[in-house]
């Protein structure tokens, strides 16, 4: 297992590099944008009250001092990283002076909770059904599901989401259409709050599942119908291997490897995908936060959201990469 340890170490090094480069890129994009955070904050703070010009100047000077926007870009870059490693991303402008990181921390569990569950449900169920459909090609039920998948899969996500919103929120109003939990339920570790969260997540979650399921199903079905014609499957049958075992550890496991890669790639896209979901269903997650931050020109918050997203996605892919050698012995030798 010494080689596996080396592999983990190497991948971890790559993870750090990826996060560093990604966050740095976001830093430069936001800092090179024409939006000036000092002017943005000034605009928000002075909108309603009549500050004297002297007071405004003093305020501008204080804010410039706080953000350090008068310093050269590289110096700002250095101080940004030295603050970041201590876990400080600066105050949000939207909710001044709340630290941006606190806002992200508040929104993150909603997004991660919704996404991990839906992505994992979609991936597991889609691959399982697709695998079975590829192996038992004569099953009527699975054939019917294939037709359904081909029908649903090309519909754009937001159309499916709105159709479901209309169906279950308006025509047959059984599910809440917005928010992460009931407004009058007290937050905390109690059963009512948990149930309310689950209740509110049904609609956004199932909209993601319905759309994603078809993609995984069709992909896996195609992969499996290739694998079943391989000689080793025929060989396994001649070796008397039980058919349940053939489906599980000969067919599905071999077809799974490219699907695992695809999962890593999909995870890379979830944070951008979630923006639509959270907007449509007014879900209090990172996506909504990012939209608000962009609209308000709150670039510390934008930076905080994207940095956290980059770190989360890179970590998820890192974990999947670690699973690879356990699944495929051919990766192990390298």
């Amino acid at each position, binding site marked *: 297992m010494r080689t596996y340890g080396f592999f983990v170490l190497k991948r971890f090094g790559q993870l750090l590099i990826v996060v560093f480069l990604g966050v740095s890129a976001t830093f430069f994009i936001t800092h090179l944008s024409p939006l000036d955070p000092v002017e943005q904050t000034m605009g928000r703070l002075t909108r309603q009250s009549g500050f004297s010009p002297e007071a405004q100047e003093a305020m501008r000077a204080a804010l410039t001092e706080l953000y350090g926007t008068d310093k050269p870009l590289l110096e700002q870059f250095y101080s940004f990283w030295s603050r970041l490693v201590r876990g400080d991303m600066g105050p949000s402008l939207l909710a001044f002076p709340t630290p941006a990181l606190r806002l992200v921390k508040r929104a993150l569990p909603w997004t991660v909770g919704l996404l991990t569950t839906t992505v994992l449900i979609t991936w597991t169920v889609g691959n399982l059904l697709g695998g079975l459909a590829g192996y038992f090609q004569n099953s009527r039920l699975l054939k019917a599901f294939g037709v359904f998948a081909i029908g649903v899969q090309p519909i754009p996500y937001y159309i499916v989401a709105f159709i479901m919103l209309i169906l279950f929120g308006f025509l047959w109003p059984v599910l809440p259409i917005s928010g992460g939990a009931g407004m009058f339920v007290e937050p905390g570790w109690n059963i009512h709050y948990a149930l309310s969260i689950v209740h509110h997540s049904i609609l956004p979650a199932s909209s993601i599942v319905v759309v994603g399921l078809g993609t995984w199903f069709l992909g896996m079905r195609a992969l499996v119908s290739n694998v079943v014609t*391989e*000689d*080793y499957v*025929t*060989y*396994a*049958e*001649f*070796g*008397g*291997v*039980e*058919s349940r075992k053939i489906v599980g*550890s*000969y067919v599905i*496991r*071999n077809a799974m490897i490219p699907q695992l890669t695809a999962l890593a790639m999909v995870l890379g896209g979830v944070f951008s995908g979630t923006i639509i979901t959270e907007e449509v269903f007014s879900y209090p997650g990172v996506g909504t936060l990012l939209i608000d931050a962009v609209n308000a020109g709150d670039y510390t918050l934008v930076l905080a959201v994207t940095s956290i997203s980059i770190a989360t996605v890179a970590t998820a892919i890192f974990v999947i990469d670690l699973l690879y050698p356990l*699944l*495929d*012995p*051919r990766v192990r*030798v390298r």
Partner: protein
Amino acid sequence: MSAILEVAHVSKRFAMGGVLSRRHVEAVNDASFAIEEGQPEVFTIVGESGSGKTTLARMMLGLELPTTGEIRLSGRSMADRRGRAAKIEFMRHAQPVFQNPFEAFNPLKRVDRYLDASARVLLGARGRGAIDAAMDVALHKVGLSLAEVRGRYAHELSGGQLQRVAIARALIPNPEILVADEPVSMVDASLRMSIVNLLRDLRDNLNVTVIYITHDLATAYYISDRIIIMQKGYIVEMGPAQTILESPEHPYARLLKESVLPVDDPGRERVQAPDRSLALAAAENSGSGRLVPRTGGRSVRMNAE
């Protein structure tokens, strides 16, 4: 003397293309022969690509059912063998060896897992000791041992070794028949003869009938007892290997023999391409006529005169 494997007037048609452009391909046409019990031999099926030899092999293994005709193992038709118990009973008598050993093993599993399953299910071995013993015995038959193979993945073994493991796995249930579909064509030329010799030893020492499917006339000549030459789905010549390979009668069989490159004088003389008239006659005669018994126990496809 009764036949263990009987192929009786077997034909196989495949539908090709979609709904509009559907056409049928006759992969195998009216093939008949029998393998006798208690008389181990190397029974060779020779033919070019698309001649139907692999389809015939797949039908003998029960992987395809004939469109018409019947294949019987120990008197029982392949079409009647439904359900797991009947299939396992069949696998105890006939086992396959495929062309590419790297495709024959699951790349994600250790190769001994296959041997393990065969010993457990087909031989009925119970307990670690009995299963290991069965695997070791089979591996020794092909010149390997369990210690060399255990815990190895397919990519960690060479093609020749892997093909030996594949043969060992097929030998675990002590089958009477081994259907080897191009078993040496993916193996290094230098190791080819060791596999061919192994097949011969199986016949001589273990009384296994080897159905050897190949396009390589040289190895066919070397080990065959009986031979079938196939062209475009038809058997064109069938009988004792030595008689046929020394003096083939059918134009296609003669063309095949002519096409074997001589190794006697390498580089000295320009290799003569086989007579063009022979190729034309072979193409012209394909699929016509019927098998007529000839001298020396062979049958040749000829036009009725």
